């Protein structure tokens, strides 16, 4: 076989291509219709033993993203009892300092009574045109207040102002965070509970 290959290199190459071609049919026949358009099918097609057609037909089919997947940051808020939105952010400014392209602007709120800075952001802006999706803000925020989103379908008709996200676009409930990053969320919740315990 080896010698055969040496003398008929092109033939053996074509053999490989043909093999690939026939595989696409054989695998489809063996695995059946479930191979396409179903989550199991998509999962099966990205395993190490997959053969045949490899392509995922985006947007009809979508690859599931892993938990750590990061696109744009968002601010997490806890839902209060009366539906109020309690941002976790304390306007400490660490994320703004660590952000490599410097695309976070935080305006710290002042307490209306005392006039002293209060631990809330009055304004919070992220320029999504500049954000490089590095995840540092989420990594170094000491209050689990800023997290990376999974939503990657971000095309829009305009740029500039519309990509300068303010609080309205940045705030998302903690339930959403728990839904996209369940493992991280529960680990962080446990760590916070642990921290709070000795004091109580």
């Amino acid at each position, binding site marked *: 076989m080896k010698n055969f290959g040496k003398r008929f290199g092109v033939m053996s190459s074509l053999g490989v*291509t043909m093999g690939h071609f026939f595989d696409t049919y054989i695998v489809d026949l063996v695995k059946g219709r479930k191979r396409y358009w179903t989550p199991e099918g998509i999962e099966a097609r990205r*395993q190490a*033993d997959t053969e045949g057609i490899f392509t995922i037909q985006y947007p009809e089919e979508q690859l599931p993203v892993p938990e750590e997947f990061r696109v744009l940051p968002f601010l997490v808020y806890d839902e209060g009892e009366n539906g109020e939105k309690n941002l976790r952010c304390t306007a400490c400014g660490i994320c*703004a*300092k660590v*952000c*490599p392209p410097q695309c976070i*602007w935080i305006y710290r709120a002042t307490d209306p009574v005392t006039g002293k800075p209060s631990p809330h952001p009055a304004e919070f802006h992220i320029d999504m045109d500049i954000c490089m999706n590095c995840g540092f803000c989420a*990594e*170094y925020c000491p209050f689990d207040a800023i997290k990376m989103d999974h939503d990657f379908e971000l095309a829009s008709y305009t740029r500039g102002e519309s990509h300068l996200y303010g609080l309205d676009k940045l705030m998302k409930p903690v339930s959403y965070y728990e839904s996209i990053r369940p493992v991280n969320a529960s680990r962080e919740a446990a760590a916070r509970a642990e921290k709070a315990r000795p004091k109580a």
Partner: protein
Amino acid sequence: MTEATLVNPLETLVEHFPSGWVKKDDRPGYSGFIVEREHLLDFARAMRDDFGFDYLSMVTASDYLAEGIFDVVYYAYKTIGGPALVFKVQVPREDAVVPSLVALYPGADFQERELWDLMGIRFEGHPDLRRILMWEGFEGHPLRKDWKEPFYEEDVKPFKSRWPEGKPIHADDRNPFNDNVQYPTGFDPERWVPEAETLLYSGLQQTAHYEEFKTDELIVNMGPQHPSTHGVFRMVVSLQGEKIVDLKPVMGYLHRNHEKIGERNTFLQNMPFTDRLDYTTSMSNNFAYALAVEKLMGLQVPERAEYIRVIMAELTRIMNHFFATGFLLNDLGVYFTASLYAIEERELILDIFEEVSGSRMMCNYFRFGGVVRDVSDEVLKKIHNLIYDRIPRKLDQFDAYLTNNEILRTRCEGVGVLTADQAIALSTAGPILRASGVPYDVRRADPYSIYDRLDFDVVTGIHGDIYDRYLVRVGEIKESIKIIKQLLRDIPGGPILAGKPAYQVRVPAGESYGRVEGPKGELGFYIVSSGKPNPERYHVRAPTFINLTSLAPMSRGEKVADVVVILGAIDIVLGEVDR
């Protein structure tokens, strides 16, 4: 090498030269030797010929504004392995002229041009000292410390305006042209004559007329927009018929002054920026940068983190070599079949990167002293499946598909030949160097991380042609598989980061150079710290940029269609070439 130098190690090097020529660099945190400018050529010649430092890996410079000097820094190695010889020339900023080393080490060509372009250091005797990355009409030398870019805000990050009074501004709004260009005063695009272009064309070698065909010499611009150039890259070729007489690469279309950005950033902030150099191999880029900073900080990386790092670096190598081989076939005109087969394997590896780092290509996974998060057993299982089952199988298929294919062999064998001597002289690195028969691999020659404990072979070629480069890449995939198998077997438990995660790291003053054997060659980061939160100097030794020095010597005398393949076999990524 004479016997005298074998018994005279570097410690006594100063005594070899008349007094006053060379002295030790004894600033704290610095190493190497300071050579007098007048004696640089003699010194370098002695180093090359008598001491065996035949491989000038990196030339760079740093600007010490306060002292009013430029340090021009040279890193030379022996191709038989061992530590670096670092030598420097100090010149005053007002009189920044240094003798060029191109005659001794042709590989310094592009690097000296880069220094002229970005630092404004003139290299006397350089055959072709033109700007290389910036555009021809550009004024000033942007890496000088007193140069300020159009959107200049502050010298260093974090910028003060961000917090606590953050009011966002669009950088675009502050520039009258609404894009990031600064024009020289009095610049009129209508009347501007790109003189450098004329210089470029007239710099091409000429030949005597071909008698047989009576052809004219023709100058052709391939690129910047050309599907074969792997990005925005231009080759100016002068042709006699189909034959290439001379070639000059023109680059810089993707230049964003990575190094200036790096000097504004804090040490940590540079990590995600390194991803954007060679955007296909971000894990290796992270690795080299982390090494350089860790060297300065004196950090010890935990065992498990070392294993994870090397696994990721080797997966990157596998992925890159698959990709490069697939696209080599593209350049040969096979259209997309081979590269799509290769991309399948790449996708599966990217899935793993995505799972551990959160991003397929912009991994940003390494931190000083470790990695950002642990690798779960599930992921290790996935890597296991790939390494033990899929990749060897697919590699065999690739082998059957390509290695003995007559068309591939005819197109690649004996094309783009680089002899071992040339490859060393031109400072090429990685598969190019090894395909020419030089067994130089940083993992072996100057081991970092845990490579000294791993069992693998350095793959070399014999002929130094494109076919051997292909074989070296395939061979290296096999070696990487071997390495990852050992790592998966032995990976210990334990922490993955030395100390606590910190966004402000203290980096003691000094210089350091961290280098790894990246998939494309020796990738190094030269860093000078002054003890502040931001690097004083941040330089990237980009392997593909320096490998491009060999493009012209490889292409002369070849057919024009082969140039595309020769370029493809260098495996360039413009993000790294242009920085």
